């Protein structure tokens, strides 16, 4: 552990070259890599063991948290990696929720192999449409326009859902039938928990592969310096649209799981409230590291659940204060206490690390 800490310290103070000069470059590189799998492993083991020690009603709560962590992952892809501020991520989450709710209500389709792909597809489609409109075009859009555009989209969807009788208006769609596979019904409980955890793990690994690929490296570069990446010949707007669509698909998957887990959908699910909620998770946990998003969701939801009994009224105020402190003093989130800055850059291939080092040395 001390090696790790030293590596991080060396990293942080920009003395990586010295370490290299002393011939510890390999060790330093290994150490820098080791922290992340440890954190991920701890989180996974904790998640696997959780239902064994939690009471039933807490398992239900934990399932919800895992779904929200999946949702947080989608926002982290978009904001943490590509630097697109999507203030309307709930639009994809909620529209997929509404979509599968309608499938279950009107067409009696609850088969897991149909509804989850359907939800993912709905999220993907909406994200493609909105992202394509906001991000693509002759002139690159400003970050302000994209963030306010997504916010407005989410708000408009909220208003639409509230006013549209077919979607249940203010009350949303209640009592959605449970998800099924064959004759088995997924109701709240350990089975649902492990299903969701399995999905989260698979999606997490896919995302991890994605952000560690060349594509992910280009995205991280795009976040740090969009112009430079454009000069390298990347089609920056296309990269953004692609990751935005992927984020939308993941949000859609989370939304459809959420709809079936809660058993109802309501207008808030597409609206600004949930959109900003997911921003909170990722900022707390640490944007630009996938595990940060997951941890952020768990911490925010966990603490709010824990405090909501006694301090229901002041909890949102505390949350706001904490958020402000994190933004001011820990812009990389709580995860930055254990992970170095370089985890946000990622690496691709064996030689990539050297490139990064050169980049770091550049002014």
């Amino acid at each position, binding site marked *: 552990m001390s090696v790790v800490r030293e590596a991080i310290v060396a990293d942080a103070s920009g003395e990586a070259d010295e370490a290299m000069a002393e011939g510890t470059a390999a060790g330093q590189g290994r150490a820098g890599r080791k922290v992340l799998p440890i954190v991920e492993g701890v989180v996974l083991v904790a998640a696997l063991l959780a239902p064994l020690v939690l009471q039933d009603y807490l398992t239900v709560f934990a399932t919800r948290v895992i779904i929200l962590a999946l949702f947080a992952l989608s926002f982290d892809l978009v904001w943490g990696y590509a630097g697109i*501020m999507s*203030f309307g991520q709930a639009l994809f989450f909620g529209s997929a929720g509404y979509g599968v709710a309608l499938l279950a209500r009107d067409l009696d389709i609850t088969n897991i192999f149909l509804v989850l792909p359907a939800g993912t597809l709905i999220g993907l489609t909406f994200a493609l449409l909105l992202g394509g*409109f*906001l991000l693509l*075009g002759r*002139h690159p*859009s*400003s*970050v*302000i*326009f994209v*963030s*306010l*555009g997504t*916010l*407005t*989209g989410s*708000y*408009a969807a909220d*208003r*639409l859902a*509230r*006013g*549209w009788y077919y979607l249940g208006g203010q009350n949303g769609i209640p009592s959605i039938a449970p998800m099924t596979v064959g004759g088995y019904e997924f109701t709240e409980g350990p089975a649902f928990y492990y299903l969701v955890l399995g999905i989260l793990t698979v999606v997490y690994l896919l995302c991890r592969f994605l952000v560690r690929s060349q594509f992910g490296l280009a995205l991280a570069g795009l976040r740090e310096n969009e112009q430079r990446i454009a000069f390298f010949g990347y089609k920056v707007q296309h990269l953004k649209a692609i990751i935005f669509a992927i984020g939308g698909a993941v949000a859609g998957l989370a939304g459809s799981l959420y709809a079936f887990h809660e058993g109802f959908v309501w207008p808030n699910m597409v609206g*600004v409230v949930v959109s*900003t909620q997911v*921003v909170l998770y990722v*900022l707390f946990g640490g944007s630009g590291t996938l595990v940060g998003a997951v941890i952020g969701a768990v911490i925010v939801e966990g603490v709010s659940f824990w405090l909501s009994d006694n301090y229901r*009224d*002041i909890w*949102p*105020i505390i*949350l*706001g*204060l904490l*958020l*402000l402190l994190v*933004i*001011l003093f820990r*812009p990389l989130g709580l995860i930055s206490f254990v992970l170095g800055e370089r985890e946000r850059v990622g690496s691709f291939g064996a030689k990539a690390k050297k490139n990064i080092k050169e980049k770091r040395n550049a002014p």
Partner: protein
Amino acid sequence: MANAFVAAFEILSFGAIIVLIVLGLGIIASMMGIFNFAQGEFVLLGAYITYLAYAKGMPIWTGMVAAPFVVGALGFVLEALIIRRFYAAPIVAMLGTYALGLIIRESVRGLIGGFYLTVPEPVGGSIDIGAMHISAWRFTIIVITLLVMAGCYLLLSRTSFGLRMRATLENPSLARASGISTPLMYGATFAFGSALAGLAGALIVPVFSLYADLGLRFLIQGFVAVMVGGVGSFIGPVAGAGVIGTLSAALPWVMAPVVADVLVFVLAIVFIKFRPQGLIAGKGV
């Protein structure tokens, strides 16, 4: 005829309310490049102060006069403590002001509970023109909005304070070299924008009643209005607010309110996409 007149008045008065709310937002966005997510909560605070004055048995107008000063002072303090750190990064500024807004909103929610609290109109009754009645208070809002607009314009374009403010925002280093205290000007601009929000909140609370999510409702409309009007000038956001306010009030008369509600936002976003500089491009007043 009478109906059309009433409709026109309703549209005009809602447009005036949106203009009033957007004024402060627009000044902060145009002059400082910050989209202040806490602006809606400044509106809420203005409304709350007015309610407080009413609940304590004071005349309502004392609350309305106090609101802009209190909220403006708060804005000045917040700028000095927090907002100042965000100038370099617009997105971080959004998140930071969002956090501030969350704190203010939830504090007010804690104070008033989940209720809708009504505040009576200080100028009650209606103005009768022939067979038509229009609300006297809404008429007052229109008049005050016009006065505030004129006042802001004169302040920015005709006074030395306005000149220094514009100089600071256009070229900070040159302004500093000319002996203008730029941090003070930023603080003053932010305080001024907040004070306008406080005033807006104070004036609209008799119309919309007081509830914790009062500000949120106008925030997004305000942002869209600023973008439609064009960031960078004083007159741009005002024009945008006029357009958005008029559209949101007028469309429900000709189509289903749900569709109208959404259509305004869709139209606005499409407009901004194809004309990013907004209705009125360019810097200056």
